[in-house]
């Protein structure tokens, strides 16, 4: 994975993939691209087609209606392809994790993709409801290797 990561480390071109989100995360993506936060410092560029993109910014819990289109978009992205799952909905299904019309987050999507033989080289999770624009910048900086990972699992046993 690290070898593949090296290949997109220069400038990350992103495609914004909305899979049925409430638009809060989408607005934060636009916020991250404004001159105030300025994601273009890291070479991030929003492109209009998944064929030009390195990374897919996936927002929303992936509704059943959007699932075939999402798979098409991921298939169209050239390798190495990475997904940044944004928000609670993208990374874990959020409040819609067990509703009838969503598949609940990027983990189940990756499983479906595996069944179809579509490979994804890496998934980055950015929790938040909605995400702060800084959280997106942090994820991009994490891919570029500018910051260290702070998230850590805690396992505590009570006597």
């Amino acid at each position, binding site marked *: 994975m690290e070898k593949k990561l090296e290949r997109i480390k220069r400038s990350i071109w992103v495609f914004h993939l909305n899979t049925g989100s409430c638009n809060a995360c989408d607005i934060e993506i636009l916020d991250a691209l404004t001159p*105030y936060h*300025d994601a273009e410092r890291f070479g991030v560029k929003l492109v209009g087609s998944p064929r030009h993109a390195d990374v897919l910014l996936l927002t929303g819990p992936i509704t059943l209606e959007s699932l075939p289109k999402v798979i098409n978009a991921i298939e169209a992205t050239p390798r190495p392809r990475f997904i940044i799952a944004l928000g609670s909905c993208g*990374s874990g299904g959020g409040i819609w*994790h067990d509703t009838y019309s969503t598949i609940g987050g990027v983990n189940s999507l990756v499983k479906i993709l595996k069944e179809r033989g579509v490979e994804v080289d890496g998934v980055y999770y950015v929790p938040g409801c909605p995400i702060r624009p800084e959280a997106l910048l942090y*994820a991009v900086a994490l891919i570029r290797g500018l910051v260290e990972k702070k998230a850590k*699992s805690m396992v505590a046993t*009570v006597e």
Partner: protein
Amino acid sequence: MSFVKKIIKPVEVLVVASKTGRVTIKYPFEEPWISPEFRGKIEIDPTKCIGCGACVNACPPNALEMIESEDKKTLRYFVGRCIFCWRCIDVCPVGAIKGTRNFELATNDPLDLYDYIVHNRVKCRECGKVTGETTRMLKYVLEKAFVTENYNNKCPDCRKKIFINAISMRRTGPVGEKT
């Protein structure tokens, strides 16, 4: 005329830009500005948590879940699903959950998103069967509410037996000696 304007315009922009100065923040290399009301990741204090499950009931997206196994009760916190409403902080009876303003939760490993607190479950003093409560919760309940020594630390079935025995002793003598 238009040729002169073409030359002057960039100069005008330069003047405006020098007045405004730089607005872009240097985020990953400096502290971000976060309002004091911002709600970020919650932190559960394992030294205080009693494993009562009040937060599990209150959590709208089931980010906090209680996983029950044979003799363990595990409180699992999945940040990837948390909507940061902080309702768990309001309902926690012992104040074990603390809100932070941490939002830098991005990771490439899904296992980093989980926090676990493993509780032991109480065994019945009479029959040795595992009851629902955790050891911490039993302690908490005994401190708060009055429970007769006869009944505490026993499973519901054993308690029922003791109760029926006590009643029958008063009325007809011990159970089983009738007829």
